[in-house]
């Protein structure tokens, strides 16, 4: 993590700021689609999860899936947003082969969720990003151009799947903030169980709006929209490319055209898809097959009771109750599974030590193995035990690392490993004294040097003691006894 997330583009004397707004499309976690009962399971054979409604057969009518509405409300609450008592589904009309109805049912003028707020934890401190709105809409099907050389194939499995479009205000200023924003959104939705946030499977995609302006200016520049970017890395690359392109245009005295652009991940560049003049006229109008969605406060309040503790609140609690640093707390709450693991470990163990072991050794291990914490090879129960053995002096931190490595191979009780391998720490003062006496005796020349002022040799004696004890000597006790003996 860099110390600062700020991002400016400099050309000669001119410093430019980048203004970014995101339209995130998040697939609603739901077993069935927004207006039909077909399954939403990912990876099924093409066109096996398609109802007559999804394929827009004559006379077929949409019926709203209440669960998806609830999920959108939950997400709205998670974004600290206003839930609208009345929202309207509109038709967005355009022709495409993977859009069977010839229109997408979406929400235009009256979205289900209004203005909200997301808090980002940046190195400089917290940053608030405004949410403009969240609305529900149908996903389209998928056109596949590269299977048959002569025709395009269409898979309608995704057709009609519920999406939440979450539109941010143009409050983001750097690729790092975009990274942080997407991760925070994803974290909130995972806490709520409203979107799995899986970018590889397309559950989370974004359209990125980018404009630039001279630093200090209050006016917004002409923006370009980069369509359908499906990874944070690509979003960042696209923003950097696009912002530089726009700055170059301005520097050359040219105008920026408001347009829709595509990001080519292979060439790392954006290119024009269609200009403002060519923009579709979607002819939005209220879908006459659906009544306005009316939600009363009682219904919203009932859903509020189902909302779990969210990352921001959890972070505050971790700081207040467990004395964690904001940095530690941020890391531990970013993923709900991590926070659960942490709270299980600290139930019976020291918080500080547990935190260090989770954010240090465990994260390194998971990272190395490419695992999520929910698949951690070391259970929270066993890690808790390990921490306790360190804390009560049964083992040293160094031995603990050895035991941790064994645990990583098979999730074994650390107590069993300690007993089997005889790794228990030597904390008997008499035994330690014996050990030290022998070392001092064997190294009388060094003792003389030490006493004549060569303090650094203290480490040498500790090292020798550890070596002879096989690493089991209690370091604290060892230090104390050694000091006493050498000052005599």
């Amino acid at each position, binding site marked *: 993590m860099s110390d600062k997330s700020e991002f400016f583009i400099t050309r000669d004397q001119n410093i430019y700021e980048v203004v970014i707004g995101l339209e995130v499309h998040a697939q609603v976690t739901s077993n069935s689609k927004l207006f039909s009962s077909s399954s939403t399971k990912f990876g099924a054979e093409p066109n096996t999860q398609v109802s*007559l409604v999804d*394929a*827009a*057969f*004559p*006379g*077929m*009518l*949409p*019926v*709203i899936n209440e669960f998806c509405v609830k999920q959108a409300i939950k997400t709205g609450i998670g974004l600290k947003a206003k839930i609208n008592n009345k929202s309207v589904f509109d*038709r967005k*009309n355009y*022709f495409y*082969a993977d859009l*069977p*109805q*010839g*229109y997408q049912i979406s929400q235009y003028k009256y979205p289900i969720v209004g203005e909200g707020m997301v808090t980002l934890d940046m190195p400089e401190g917290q940053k608030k990003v405004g949410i403009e709105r969240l609305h529900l809409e149908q996903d389209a099907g998928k056109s596949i151009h590269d299977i048959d050389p002569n025709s*395009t194939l*269409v898979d309608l499995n995704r057709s009609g799947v519920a999406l939440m479009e979450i539109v941010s205000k143009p409050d983001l200023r750097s690729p790092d903030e975009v990274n942080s924003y997407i991760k925070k959104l994803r974290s909130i939705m995972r806490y709520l169980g409203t979107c799995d946030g899986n970018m590889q499977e397309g559950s989370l995609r974004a359209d990125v709006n980018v404009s630039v302006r001279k630093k200090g200016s209050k006016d917004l520049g002409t923006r370009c929209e980069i369509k359908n970017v499906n990874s944070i890395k690509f979003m960042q690359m696209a923003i950097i490319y696009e912002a530089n392109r726009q700055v170059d245009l301005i520097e050359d005295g040219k105008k920026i055209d408001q347009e829709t652009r595509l990001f080519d991940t292979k060439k790392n560049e954006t290119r024009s898809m269609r200009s403002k003049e060519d923009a579709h*006229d979607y*002819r*939005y*109008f209220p879908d*006459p*097959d*659906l*009544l306005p969605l009316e939600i009363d406060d009682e219904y919203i309040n009932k859903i509020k009771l189902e909302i779990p503790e969210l990352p921001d609140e959890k972070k505050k609690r971790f700081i207040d109750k467990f004395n964690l640093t904001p940095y530690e707390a941020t890391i531990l709450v970013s993923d709900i599974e991590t926070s659960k693991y942490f709270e299980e470990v600290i139930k019976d163990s020291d918080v500080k030590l547990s935190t260090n072991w989770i954010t240090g050794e465990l994260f390194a291990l998971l990272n190395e193995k490419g695992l999520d914490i929910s698949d951690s090879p070391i259970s929270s129960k066993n890690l808790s035990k390990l921490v306790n053995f360190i804390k009560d002096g049964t083992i040293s931190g160094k031995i603990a690392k050895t035991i941790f490595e064994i645990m990583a191979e098979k999730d074994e009780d650390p107590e069993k490993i300690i007993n089997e391998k005889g790794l228990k720490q030597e904390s008997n003062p008499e035994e330690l004294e014996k050990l030290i006496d022998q070392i001092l005796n064997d190294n009388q020349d060094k003792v003389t040097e030490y006493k004549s002022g060569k303090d650094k040799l203290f480490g040498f004696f500790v090292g020798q003691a550890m070596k002879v004890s096989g690493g089991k000597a209690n370091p604290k006790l060892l230090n104390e006894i050694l000091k006493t003996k050498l000052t005599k």
Partner: protein
Amino acid sequence: MSEITSLTLFELIKNIKEKKISSNEAAKSFVDRAERSKKLNTYVTENFENCLKHSKEFDNRPNFDLKLPGIPIAVKDLFCTTDVRTTAGSNILNNFIPTYESTVTQNIWNEGGILLGKLNCDEFAMGSSNETSFFGNVQNPIAENIVPGGSSGGSSAALAANLTPITIGTDTGGSIRQPASFTGTVGLKPTYGSCSRYGIVAFASSLDQAGPMSKDVKDCSILLEVISSFDKKDSTSIDFKRNNYSKDLTNNIKGLKIGIPKEYRIDGMPDEIEKLWQKGIEYAKECGAEIIDISLPHTSYALPTYYIVAPAEASSNLARYDGVKYGFRSSGENLIDMYEKTRSEGFGEEVKRRIMIGTYVLSSGYYDAYYLKAQKVRQLIKKDFDEAYNKVDAILTPSTPSSAFKIGEKSSDPVSMYLNDIFTVPVNLAGLPGISIPAGTDKNNYPLGLQIIGKPFDEQTVLNIAYSMEEKINYKNNISDWWIK
């Protein structure tokens, strides 16, 4: 056998229940008559063999508790029927065979009805004369080369020609009531939300409503009872308590207040329509109703409002017919080319005209001036009726501003065709129930209808007034079977 086909539904049910006529005999009679009536061009798809087969099955295991025991019924080709081609009168669905059944037709089969076949209609129900159908125009049995009205023209013609004992149509701006008026039959458009739209090829979703078409009011009440139902598959279906319309039917309308809206007295309205209306008022008085003059001030805006709202919704509803998934597909050099050719060749002129109008009024820059304004006016029209219903129980108007016209007479002039809907569209815009009953004839002896408009969900009062007036009017169609050689 000819007397079987001229029975009313009520009489036919009675005969079947009393085992005087078998379902198969009935089916045979209707099939036989249809075979001799091809000249009327009422059927798009015949289901005769299946109908005969199913009627036999019914006779083998009859269930006389059903409301339509073994009754053969032909339906408008806008209702999707499992395994039976459903075209909506369009080339673009020429080869379309649904794997599913509309709720309304399913209700009919559940009560023992048997499908005779699919009846011709204006393409996607857009038309007032059945001349826009890809499958050719329909002859009105009243006289040769006269239109049967539209869009449910095949239904009204088949009914008047005794090719089906009863039928169903759909009504977006008058498509049940106007053809009923043109053929001397009864047609009811129920309150919006009464009959499920599930499985009906959509024209304009906020206006479309299925309804019964029959030889008399009693039959109408029997079929309404069968087809009106709450359906979770249609989000605009309304869960209200439905009457036993046929059981509750009464000719006693004493003391009911019937409104006469002055705005329906339009410029250039033929004398015979004015006279018919006056006659209707007299009949209503004779039945014991109190006549009250009322005002529906926004009536003159109804037609322009309708011709914005309906095409707007249609332009979007018909976007799914793109040649990609089902139906007609033309070949093209690329996707856009394929779309253009498919839709150019697949749709007829009137449908294309309305898609163009609808696309225009929804376009950015025009939306507020047209579509949004039309929606506001629609609210005002609805408010007119709400206020009127503070004073009256129902409203009496002519069904149409003229009698049936000649085939080809208006097909080159869309606006004069649209004017035909002037008395029927306000009812759709307000979502109200309305019935057309035959009430007299014009100078050519062509039938003329009167319309009774009711309060929302008050089909019973509408039916009762119609039933009572029907008795007084005692109208009989004079059909010569001219098309049967």
